[in-house]
């Protein structure tokens, strides 16, 4: 080989090799991340991806999933053209049609449902990712429907609402100034790789780390001074018990409590019901470790806490568990204090960047308000606090037609596997919908049930607006042309707004104009942003967030204080039984009758993060799939011995509503009685095991991480 040939094989960028480095972002995981990527492009094709060193967010780092971005983009099951169903729903038989034909069909079908049943009978639903959501949200409202729903009905929003009704807003850990890090459910390595450096730095300067988790993780191994290996679903009890210890031992910041909080006496009375011995019994932790953790957290301040988006709130007692943990932050005077948890409101699409945009206004100023959204009747706190559907009620509403029928779904990236009782949902959609249109990148299980499928392109094939921590904003440029006939989600929506002649000049003017409207006043326009391949510092951005502003100006709650006793919850009709205090109850309370207990003795926790997976988005990415080829549950070694299970055995996991067959892996990282199973597999969809009504009454969130199940070995025939 010549030297040049060697360089081409090794993909060295340069004029001689014809390999150009183009910049974009990875949108595989949550919009809270989205790292900057360098795409090595040769002849219009990406041949390698790595993290952008100069990017102000990820500084060259990429996680496991992002490292596989090329393999994700070029997945074999990419949708290629618009397709119209020709077989039965679910059969997967389609014929190719043109974009013009597809748009005409959508306009006609949605128009017909609107005419016959009313606009609210069309639900506009979104899965991952989230970048187009402001456009879809507004589209939904302008069309005339109140029913805009996303995966927020099962992800993060429960925490957001719990924060809101307690402190008026959420607050992130100020790692840089903390002496103690309370890593509640903190795992980091697999879900938030850039956060690990903060923990490393804290440790390096002598800070202390407490990790509370149901499994041992690299974080608990590498960084924990105290690791509390807690029984799953009992975090709320631990938080109340820690509250009692802190109060009884005089570790509370009573000056803070008196000045800035509301409902302390009631909260204290609640904590009093959780003495150490009782908490030890519930949580499975030793009394000494609970005492040491409470003492370290309360006396070695400032102390900040990790609040995970979903680990806790995926228990049916999770909303209150999260509130109880947030309460500890106020009790110890760490809320809105340097080194504690500091509020930092999102600028655009969940990302804080130190300035305001008109995103919320853009989404909501055309809200029709002509009916109550899906789920509103069952989850009044959700309805009062969040402007989306609680789609956990979608299945019931489809089946019963009450309070009004849902007759069409127009969805981007909708993933039925996100829903408990997935198969029942797909059946109900097949039987009750007049029209189901799905836009997606891939030929998914859900796509097979659609009447019309539209191919979307990936993040590297489009331009998008994105804010970043540090006061940055960017508008990316495509690094390759959209594959096949795929189009950008927002172009599809804006095209449709024109073809359907919706009453909204903004949407009709296209995505970039909409972005300009949203960021107006920040000192930059989309045209300015497009001049740079990297995020640009926004002139008006104030970064970092300065602690103490809320203490000075008052909490955004009814009382203006941090509410141990939530007045927003007290306002909800008492017949729903929602307690203004963060009371603890059993995470399996709806499954604790003697018969269910006996038949389903295991605690099923689904979706605990592994490095190579995020929901179902990466299961079909060959490189990532090769790291764990078979859907696999993790079983404690002692349980496995008792049941005669060995590594690699095929087992059946089953609950009262469903069963799946998976491989079994032995582990000692979880306690006996617990089973972990990753979600999102077509062939082993664990959400089919979760009953539709196993929900947190405060948020409507399903108990994905706390559910009874059983396991049995499947004998080879």
């Amino acid at each position, binding site marked *: 080989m010549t030297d040049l040939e060697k*360089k081409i094989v090794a993909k060295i960028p340069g004029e001689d090799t014809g390999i150009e480095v183009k910049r974009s972002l990875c949108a595989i995981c949550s919009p809270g991340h989205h790292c900057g990527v360098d795409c090595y492009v040769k002849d219009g094709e990406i041949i390698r991806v790595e993290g952008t060193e100069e990017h102000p967010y990820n500084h060259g780092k990429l996680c496991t999933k992002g490292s596989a971005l090329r393999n994700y983009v070029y997945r074999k099951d990419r949708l290629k053209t618009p397709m119209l169903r020709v077989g039965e729903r679910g059969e997967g038989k389609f014929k190719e049609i043109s974009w013009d034909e597809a748009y005409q069909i959508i306009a006609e079908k949605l128009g017909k449902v609107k005419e016959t049943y009313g606009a609210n009978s069309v639900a506009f639903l979104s899965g991952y990712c989230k970048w187009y959501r402001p456009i879809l949200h507004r589209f939904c409202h302008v069309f005339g429907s109140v029913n805009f729903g996303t995966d927020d009905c099962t992800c993060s929003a429960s925490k957001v609402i719990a924060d809101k009704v307690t402190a008026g807003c959420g607050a992130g850990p100020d790692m840089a100034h903390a002496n103690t890090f309370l890593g509640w459910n903190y795992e980091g390595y697999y879900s938030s790789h850039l956060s690990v450096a903060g923990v490393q730095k804290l440790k390096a300067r002598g800070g202390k780390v407490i990790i509370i988790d149901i499994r041992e993780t*690299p974080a608990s191994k590498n960084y924990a001074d105290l690791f509390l290996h807690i029984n799953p679903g009992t975090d709320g009890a631990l938080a109340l018990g820690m509250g009692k210890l802190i109060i009884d031992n005089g570790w509370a910041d009573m000056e803070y409590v008196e000045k800035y909080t509301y409902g302390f006496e009631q909260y204290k009375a609640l904590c009093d019901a959780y003495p150490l011995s009782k908490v030890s019994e519930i949580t499975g932790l030793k009394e000494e470790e609970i005492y040491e953790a409470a003492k370290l957290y309360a006396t070695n301040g400032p102390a900040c806490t990790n609040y995970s988006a979903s680990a806790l709130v995926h228990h049916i007692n999770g909303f209150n568990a999260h509130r109880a943990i947030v309460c500890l932050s106020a009790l110890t005077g760490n809320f809105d204090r340097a080194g504690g948890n500091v509020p930092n409101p999102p600028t655009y699409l969940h990302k804080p960047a130190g300035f305001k945009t008109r995103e919320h206004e853009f989404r909501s100023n055309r809200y029709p308000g002509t009916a109550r959204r899906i789920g509103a009747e069952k989850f009044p706190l959700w309805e009062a606090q969040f402007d989306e559907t609680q789609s956990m009620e979608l299945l019931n509403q489809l089946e019963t037609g009450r309070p009004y029928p849902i007759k069409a779904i127009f969805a981007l990236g909708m993933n039925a596997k996100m829903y408990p009782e997935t198969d029942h949902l797909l059946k109900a959609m097949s039987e009750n919908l007049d029209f189901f249109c799905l836009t997606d990148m891939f030929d998914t299980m859900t796509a097979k049930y659609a009447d019309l499928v539209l191919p979307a392109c990936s993040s590297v094939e489009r331009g998008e607006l994105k804010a970043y921590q540090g006061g940055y904003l960017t508008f990316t440029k495509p690094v390759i042309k959209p594959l096949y006939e795929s189009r950008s989600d927002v172009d599809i929506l804006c095209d449709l707004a024109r073809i359907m002649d919706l009453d909204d000049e903004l949407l009709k003017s296209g995505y970039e104009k909409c972005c300009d409207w949203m960021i107006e006043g920040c000192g930059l326009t989309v045209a300015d942003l497009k001049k740079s391949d990297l995020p640009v510092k926004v002139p008006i951005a104030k970064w970092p967030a300065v602690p103490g502003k809320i203490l000075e100006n008052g909490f955004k709650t009814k009382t203006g204080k941090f509410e141990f006793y939530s007045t927003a919850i007290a306002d909800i009709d008492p017949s729903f039984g929602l307690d203004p205090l963060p009371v603890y109850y059993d995470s399996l309370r709806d499954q604790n009758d003697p018969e269910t207990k006996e038949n389903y003795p295991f605690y099923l926790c689904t979706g605990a993060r592994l*490095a190579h997976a995020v929901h179902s988005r990466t299961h079909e990415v060959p490189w990532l799939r090769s*790291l764990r080829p078979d859907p696999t549950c993790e079983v404690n070694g002692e349980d496995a011995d008792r049941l005669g299970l060995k590594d690699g055995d095929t087992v059946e996991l089953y609950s009262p509503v469903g069963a799946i067959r998976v491989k079994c892996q032995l582990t000692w990282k979880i306690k006996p009685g617990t089973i972990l199973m990753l979600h999102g597999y077509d062939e082993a969809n664990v959400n089919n095991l979760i009953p539709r009504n196993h929900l947190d009454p405060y948020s409507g969130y399903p108990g994905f991480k706390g559910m009874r199940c059983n396991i049995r070995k499947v004998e080879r025939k």
Partner: protein
Amino acid sequence: MKYTFVFNPDLCSSCSSCVIGCMDQNDFDPESGDLPFRKTFQNEIELADGSHYSAYISAACMHCVDAPCIDACPVGCLSKDPETGFTVYDNTNCIGCKSCAMACPFGAPRYRKSDGKMVKCDGCNERVKAGLKPACVKACSFGALQCVPEEEFLAEGSAKACNVLIDQLGLRRK
């Protein structure tokens, strides 16, 4: 400048970013049935008191100073790159005898079914010569896997680093 791969298991989580980075660089096709050049391991090792120690490991060719694979190859495919010090190869003459794999204490060289030849990690030799990091190192977010100039490595006390891996793998004579 010669380079040394340094692995620190206390910073590793077996997240396998390194493996994916390697797959991307080397156009790995899982359907081929071949093994990637780099692998990660998560081993739960039972200790004397019955508890378990979680070992997180990333492993590939160690680019040994005195690489046994070089001597084992009957047709002279393997050699040391004089510039980087990596154990590189030209498998044009490879007869697929697997001697290199058998000589390697880590089993790093792989037999490729599609053409019956041996392949292995070459330390991303061309990338390093071009001033870039090896793909696996570039992909590691946690500083667990690094590629440092030999002088730096020696200055830092070479006893640590690679030896830790050898300990973890239980290869040291007790």
